[in-house]
């Protein structure tokens, strides 16, 4: 049964789509609406990855409490992306270090890569969307 499923998938076009998060989470809506886009695209069986660069890494920071600003918190949703088959989460090492953060400060398991490594992955994409 699994074989049949994978065979039928071979006919489908699977595109490599990378979402780049570069904005901090609450000051602007870009990260939140970016996440909404990722969740929808994830339902289309594409090869989705998400790269967190510059202030984008703040989206993954532990301990965010948005109650006082009356905005929806969504760090947990990033943490649950593997449930949507979005498993390729890349964090730019320099961006993390510049902000005095380590992997332990993040809400989800990510792959911490050099900028050059993420840049190489970027060149392999069919579509790159910066948020």
């Amino acid at each position, binding site marked *: 049964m699994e074989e049949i499923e994978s065979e039928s998938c071979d006919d489908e*076009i699977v*595109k490599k*789509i990378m979402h780049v998060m570069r904005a901090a989470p609450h000051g602007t*809506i*870009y990260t939140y*609406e970016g996440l*909404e*886009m990722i969740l*929808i*695209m994830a*339902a*289309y069986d*594409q090869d989705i990855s998400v790269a967190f660069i510059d202030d984008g890494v703040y989206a993954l920071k532990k301990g965010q409490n948005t109650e006082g600003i009356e905005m929806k918190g969504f760090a947990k949703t990033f943490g649950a992306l593997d449930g949507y088959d979005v498993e390729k989460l890349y964090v730019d090492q320099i961006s993390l270090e510049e902000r005095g953060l380590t992997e332990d400060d993040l809400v989800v398991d990510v792959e911490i890569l050099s900028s050059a490594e993420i840049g190489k992955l970027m060149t392999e994409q*069919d*579509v*790159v*969307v*910066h*948020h």
Partner: protein
Amino acid sequence: MNIGILLKEGPYNHQAADTAYKFAEAAIKKGHTIDAVFFYNDGVINATKLMDPPQDDRHIASRWAHLCQEHGVQMLACIAAAKRRGINDDVLIDCGTITGLGNLTDIAIRNDRLITFGD
């Protein structure tokens, strides 16, 4: 070549809508097909026909309507982003459509390029 455009910023406030339009115009002139312009984030404000700039300024909504009417470019506003910002069918430019992000995904899949303009 078939090209989709993702426009993530509103008109006038930022140059993104102008650059996207000039790019689309140049691409069409070179024989390419612009499949759709998908408005996201504040970009959905590009889709309101209520905009009324001074007469000596460019009319950005009319530009989009023109691309749609003359060159068959779909003008699509994301429904979730549009609802947040008060854009609905009543104010939509001629031949604009309010649609879901699934449509953007299809645009990303079926075109040779998806190019983003924004702030």
